[in-house]
C-alpha cells in the first residue's frame, strides 16, 4: 500500500512543480523581455508585478468553455489533455538528485524520446479538431518542424549514449561525478575520477560532445516551438497557430505543456551533458569541494540551478533573435544539424573504441 501512495504522491508533486514553474517562468519571460527591450515589464500587480501571472491564471480559470460550432468536439476537447500528458509522462524518468528519480528504468532515455513524440499527435488533433484554417496550417507547420528536428535530437542522444553505454538516466547522472562506478577521463587523457566537478561532465569527457550539446540545444528549442523556431505560432501570419481557437482552462493546459516542455528539454540536456545533479566544484587537494557539495539537497540545488539557467538562455534567445523563415528552418535542420550530428555519431564510435577502452 505505501507503494501505491508513492505512485499517487509523486505525480501530484511533479504537477505542482510544473504549475509553479510555469507561473514564475511566464513572469521571468516578461521581465527578461522588458529588460532586453529597455522597458519595465509587469509592474502594477503586486510588488514588481510579482503576482501578475497569478492574476492571469485566475482570469483564465474562470473563463467560459467555448467550442467553435463547426469543430470536431471530441478531438477539440481531448487534444490539450493529450499534449499535456505526453510532456508530463516525460518527467517520470528524469533524475533530480542521487537516486531521487520517479522511475528508475533501464530504458529511461528511450522511453522519454518515445513519449514526447506523442506530443505531435496532440498538436495535430488540436489543429484538425478546431476546424480553422489557421489552426490546421499551424499544426501542419508544427508537425513538419517537430518531425524534422527529432532527427538531430535523436542523433545527439545516440552520440551521448555511445559514450555512456546505458540508457538509464540515473546511471548516466552517476557517470559524471565523484560517485562514478567507472574511471572518468577529462578529454580522454586526464584521470579526474577523484577530482570530479566540472571536469567530469560529459561535455568535457569527450570534446565533440560540446558540439553535440549545442546541436541538442538548438534542436530542442525547435521541438518546443520557441523563437527563433516559432513559425507554427507565428502570430503575424497565423494568429495563434494550432491553439487559435482555445481559451480558458484548455488554453491553460496548452500553455502548461509548452513551459513543461521547455523545462523538460532543459533538464534532459543537463542530465545527459552538463553533469546532472553533480557539482561543478572540483576537489582541489585538501579542499574537498566536490565531496562537500554532493548529496540529496545539493543534488536538487544543482539540478535546479543548471536547468533554470538553461531555461533563462532559452528566454534570452527568444527575445533576441528574429523568427526563421520556413525554408531557412528546414535548411538548418537537414543541411547543417543532421550532417554534423552524423559526424559526431561517428566520432563517438571511434572515441569509445580507441580512447575509452
Amino acid at each position, binding site marked *: 500500500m505505501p507503494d501505491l501512495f508513492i505512485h499517487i504522491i509523486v505525480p501530484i508533486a511533479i504537477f505542482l512543480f510544473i504549475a509553479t514553474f510555469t507561473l514564475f517562468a511566464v513572469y521571468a519571460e516578461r521581465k527578461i523581455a522588458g529588460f532586453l527591450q529597455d522597458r519595465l515589464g509587469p509592474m502594477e500587480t503586486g510588488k514588481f508585478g510579482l503576482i501578475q501571472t497569478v492574476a492571469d491564471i485566475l482570469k483564465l480559470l474562470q473563463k467560459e468553455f467555448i467550442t467553435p460550432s463547426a469543430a470536431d468536439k471530441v478531438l477539440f476537447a481531448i487534444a490539450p489533455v493529450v499534449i499535456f500528458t505526453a510532456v508530463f509522462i516525460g518527467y517520470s524518468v528524469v533524475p533530480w538528485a542521487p537516486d531521487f528519480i520517479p522511475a528508475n528504468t533501464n530504458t529511461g532515455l528511450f*522511453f522519454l524520446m*518515445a*513519449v514526447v513524440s506523442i506530443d505531435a*499527435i496532440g498538436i495535430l488533433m488540436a489543429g484538425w479538431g478546431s476546424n480553422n484554417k489557421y489552426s490546421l496550417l499551424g499544426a501542419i507547420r508544427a508537425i513538419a518542424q517537430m518531425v524534422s528536428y527529432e532527427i538531430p535530437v535523436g542523433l545527439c542522444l545516440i552520440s551521448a549514449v555511445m559514450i555512456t553505454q546505458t540508457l538509464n538516466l540515473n546511471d548516466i547522472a552517476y557517470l559524471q561525478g565523484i560517485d562514478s562506478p567507472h574511471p572518468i577521463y577529462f578529454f580522454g587523457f586526464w584521470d579526474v575520477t577523484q577530482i570530479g566537478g566540472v571536469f567530469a561532465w560529459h561535455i568535457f569527457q569527450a570534446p565533440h560532445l560540446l558540439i553535440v550539446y549545442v546541436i541538442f540545444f538548438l534542436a530542442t528549442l525547435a521541438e518546443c516551438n520557441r523563437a527563433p523556431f516559432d513559425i507554427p505560432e507565428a502570430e503575424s501570419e497565423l494568429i495563434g497557430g494550432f491553439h487559435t481557437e482555445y481559451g480558458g482552462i484548455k488554453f491553460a493546459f496548452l500553455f502548461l505543456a509548452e513551459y513543461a516542455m521547455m523545462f523538460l528539454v532543459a533538464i534532459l540536456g543537463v542530465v545527459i551533458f552538463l553533469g546532472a545533479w553533480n557539482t561543478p566544484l572540483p576537489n582541489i587537494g585538501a579542499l574537498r569541494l566536490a565531496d562537500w557539495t554532493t548529496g540529496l539537497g545539493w543534488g536538487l540545488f544543482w539540478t535546479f540551478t543548471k536547468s533554470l539557467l538553461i531555461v533563462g538562455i532559452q528566454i534570452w534567445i527568444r527575445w533576441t533573435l528574429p523568427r526563421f523563415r520556413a525554408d531557412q528552418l528546414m535548411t538548418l535542420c537537414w543541411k547543417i544539424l543532421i550532417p554534423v550530428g552524423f559526424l559526431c555519431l561517428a566520432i563517438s564510435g571511434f572515441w569509445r573504441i580507441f580512447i575509452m577502452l
Partner: protein
Amino acid sequence: MTIETIIFYAFAAMAIGAGLLLVNIRNTARALFLFFVVLFAMAGLYLFALADFIAITQILIYVGGVLILLIFAFMLSNKELLKDIQTSSTRFISLANWQSVVLSITFLSLMVYTFVNWSQQMPGWIEQSISKGTLIQAKDNNIELLGFKFMTQYVLPFEIISIFLMMALIGAAHLSRKDNTA
C-alpha cells in the same frame, strides 16, 4: 486481484474497444486518432510480456512516425475521394465478407487451440528454461541483452534489415526527385 492485473485488463479492454470502434466509425479523422489509442494500448500490453524495448519502439515508430504520415496523407488527399470512402463502404479492409469471416475464424481457432494446449502443458523449451533458471525477470536489463544478441548471434539478419531500410530510403529519395536530370 493485484494492481498489475487491473492495469492489464484495462489496457486489453482499451485495445479491443478502440479497435472495434475504429473499424465501425464513419469519421475517418477520428478513426485515425482511435488507431493511436489502439497502438498505445498494444504498447502497454507488450510491457506485460516484458518486451519493454518493443513497447517503446512501437510508440516511437508507429505513433511518432507512421501514424503522423497516415494523418498527413489523409489531410492532403482529395476531398471527393474521402467522401466516397466514407459513404459507400462500411468495411475497413476491402475483402469480401466470406473471406474476412474465414480469416478471422482461422485466427481465432489458432489462438484458442494454442491457449488450450499451453494451459494443459507448457512446451518443452519453456519448462527447460524454468528448470535451468534462465528466465527473464522484470528487473533484468533487457535492452543490454538485446544489444548483445543483435551484435553477436543475430548480426546477419540485423545487417540485412539495415541494408533493406537503406534501400527503401534511397528509393524514396529517388521517387520524390524532380525529373529534370533524366
